[in-house]
């Protein structure tokens, strides 16, 4: 393939976390039995009128601020008109000319600034379900669920950048509690628009949009397939049409779905049933007060405060709940480095293996703090601490009890052994090196050297245990 240059923008839809829908009081839980969370308003019955759920406005403003946007103090709603069975009113209430927030940005790890053009509020549609008998059923539970749409400028040059951006957005929406942003649940959806051109100086090519990307993997692949498809077309001297493409996960391809609509086909006009949305300065101030420390701020602070690396700080801050758990657990610890390392090595592994988040652990942050204190005061060594932790994560007691029960406390012998082994290790660097490279028999040699030096003052068991740990 010739090296065509891709240019991409992303439209992200996120479901706003809210008990009730955007224009009525129905519950937003669309996993319930079909067509149970509906009312005349979200079903668009004749005569109904929308009234805005302020919680949604608040969250949209919060998201806008977290994404460095300017908040528009006077904004409003518009109708996007089109016919589709899952759209009860024959139009979607959204924002058109003046969105609630605009001109923001997100910075990627390569230092690149992705500009956010606008962030607006809108309502979701219902869901069409095709059953085995070729009937199409419609579930309106999702109709009227609040969404925010975040639109970037065409600033992406690779699928990797798009994926990282999605991760950043997800993190920010979760931190600010604007959205749960689970992609598998459809709470966060990304729709890239893509064009390619031959040279940097050329005009941007015709763009297409890809839909049905339900995971980060899908976003990555969908974009790569589409870049390849467009490049192939241009290379063959054919034309890229302005189309909406559909990603097919099973077939691993993108196929054209329909011609892309232009704005005038949607006959946008001001929603006459809703007054302008006036956002007061005081409202913005109150949102500011609720604004948590954002992921990037937290990472910078962690690097400074806990002396961790960039990557470590990313692991620790990937979820706000995990970061909070971490900070609670690390309280009043002197040997931070040792304990942070233990935390990073153990906790994410447990969460991953059980696919749970930190709130679902069988022990609390302060329980874990108790264990770290034992490590900190060196009453247990790291091997033992690992055993204690695995007991804790099965809900079999607290650190102190487990240490007691399993007799894992370091004895006087252990400390003496440590001192002595340190010397042996320093004195025999070659042997240590060879052991670490895999010559296991050298372990016996090192044990022998220790025994000789201890002259019977330390138990062989202690020497064995401590040496093994120190050689890790």
């Amino acid at each position, binding site marked *: 393939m010739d090296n065509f240059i891709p240019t991409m923008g992303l439209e992200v839809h996120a479901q706003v976390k809210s008990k009730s829908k955007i224009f009525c009081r129905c519950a937003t839980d669309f996993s319930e039995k079909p067509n149970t969370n509906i009312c005349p308003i979200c079903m668009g019955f004749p*005569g109904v*009128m929308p009234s805005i759920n302020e919680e949604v406005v608040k969250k949209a403003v919060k998201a806008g601020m977290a994404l460095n946007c300017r908040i528009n103090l006077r904004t409003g709603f518009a109708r996007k008109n089109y016919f589709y069975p899952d759209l009860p009113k*024959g139009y979607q209430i959204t924002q058109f000319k003046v969105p609630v927030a605009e001109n923001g940005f997100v910075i990627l790890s390569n230092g690149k600034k992705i500009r956010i053009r606008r962030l607006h509020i809108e309502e979701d549609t219902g869901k069409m379900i095709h059953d085995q008998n070729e009937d199409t059923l419609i579930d309106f539970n999702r109709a009227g669920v609040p969404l925010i749409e975040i639109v970037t400028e065409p600033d992406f040059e690779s699928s990797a950048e798009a994926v990282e951006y999605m991760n950043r957005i997800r993190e920010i929406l979760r931190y600010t509690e604007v959205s749960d942003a689970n992609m598998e649940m459809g709470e966060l959806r990304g729709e890239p628009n893509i064009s390619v051109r031959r040279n940097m100086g050329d005009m941007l090519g015709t763009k297409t949009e890809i839909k049905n990307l339900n995971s980060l993997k899908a976003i990555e692949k969908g974009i790569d397939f589409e870049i390849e498809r467009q490049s192939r077309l241009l290379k063959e001297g054919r034309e890229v049409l302005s189309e909406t493409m559909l990603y097919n996960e099973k077939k691993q391809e993108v196929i054209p779905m329909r011609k892309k609509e232009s704005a005038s086909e949607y006959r946008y006009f001001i929603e006459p049933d809703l007054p302008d949305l006036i956002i007061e300065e005081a409202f913005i101030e109150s949102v500011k007060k609720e604004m948590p420390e954002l992921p990037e701020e937290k990472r910078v602070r962690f690097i400074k405060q806990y002396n961790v690396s960039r990557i470590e700080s990313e692991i620790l801050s990937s979820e706000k709940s995990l970061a909070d758990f971490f900070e609670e657990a690390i309280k009043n610890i002197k040997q931070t480095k040792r304990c942070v390392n233990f935390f990073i090595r153990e906790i994410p592994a447990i969460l991953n293996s059980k696919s749970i988040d930190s709130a679902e652990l069988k022990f609390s942050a302060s329980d874990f703090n108790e264990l770290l204190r034992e490590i900190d005061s060196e009453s247990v060594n790291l091997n033992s601490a690992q055993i204690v932790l695995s007991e804790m994560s099965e809900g079999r007691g607290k650190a102190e009890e487990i240490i007691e029960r399993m007799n894992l406390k370091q004895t006087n012998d252990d400390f003496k052994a440590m001192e002595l082994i340190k010397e042996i290790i320093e004195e025999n660097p070659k042997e240590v090196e060879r052991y670490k490279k895999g010559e296991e028999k050298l372990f016996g040699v090192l044990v022998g050297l220790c025994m000789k030096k201890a002259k019977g003052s330390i138990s062989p068991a202690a020497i064995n245990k401590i040496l093994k740990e120190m050689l890790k």
Partner: protein
Amino acid sequence: MRVSDIISKYRAKEETPITLLDGIYEKIEKDDLNDYISLTKNIAYEEAYHSKIRHEKGMPLSDIDGVFFSIKDNIAVENIRMTCGSKILSDFISPYSATVVERIRAKGGIIVGKTNMDEFAMGSSNESSYFGPVKNPVDTSFVPGGSSGGSAASVAASHACISIGSDTGGSVRQPSSFCGVVGFKPTYGEVSRYGLTAFSSSLDTMGIISETVRDSKRVFDIIRGEDAHDSTLSSKKAGKRDYKRVGYLDAIPQADKPVEEIYGKRIEDLKKDFELVKIKMDFIDISISTYQIQTMCETSSNLARFDGIKYGLQSKSGKNLREIYSAVRGDGFGSEVKRRILIGTYFLTHNEGEYYSLSFRLRDYIANEIDKIFENIDAIVIPTSLTLPFKFNEKTSSPLQMHLSDSLTAFSNLANVPAISINGGYSNNLPCGIQLVGKRFDDDSLLEFAERAETIWRENG
């Protein structure tokens, strides 16, 4: 049928809500005006029964307890069919009630039935109803006006005391003029629209039709005011004041001769008590085009929900979505409704909706012009309609001619000002309404002025 007459009959124990209701239903059947699409006998008798007991105990809920209401069939009453005068909703039962309906029922009002209307309130003669035309009770060979033709006829024929209609460009006032009753369109933002099937959301208002101004006022005080379901309501209030200076036109070129005569006489009548000021209203011509663009654009969107998917007329025969939509909407809507949807869709599509944007600028212009007029005067007095009631089929072949019926009424919707039509007299036994227009949110003072004018005109015969 006046509210005070009914109440005094209850007090004197001459009648009960049940006996009066019997009489009303008998008369509806006997008169055969086709003013009702649905009669709500079940709920009416139940409400009448409770009202009767309250009156017997001497504990009525309000001064409309036991008073009979008809409701235009584009306003929702829970569990009652709401057709909007259209085939597409001919079997639609509303699952909820409009705010105005709830307020009326909470005060003891009894709902007699749902009244006939032009399809989706588009029309000025009630001839576009899928349920057939309504006969004018004044003379049954004439139309009752529209779109709230059934509502005005029901009040004029004593088939109800009060009717709740809707007024987007004159739909309450013009039929009131044609049937010789009072029709009041409040300021947009005074009465909740929740439950009123939208025709043109930025212009639609609930309206009241009654025999007297006092009765309109009574009901207005019950239905007006804040409603969590309608965010376009306004809490603005103008202080009450006495009207002194009244503006009038010294010539209305397009008006029929009898209309001009009656108008001239009524202006003369007012001269004793008010200072009459000649005014100009040059924006009337553009108000018609502005009105057409606005209503057609908004209606093309408001009526999109009638697609045969969720409720109303359905089609089982379509092979695909497009065929289903075409079958349902092609069969379900009448020609006037289709015409307006198509034109509105064109207006919104063409050049990114520039006509619609333009219509808002014209609306601002008209509102400004009216504000300027009101700097000098307290109220405008003009005829409600350019014509007296006309005969069936006289104008149906010319939509443009029919659209001109809104000439003297649409501007008050465009400028969001209150207006009330009162019968000004008769020519050849046909009634002619005179319209009083007030300042925005000046509804209370306007109604007071209307009561005075009503008295003066009655005294002068």
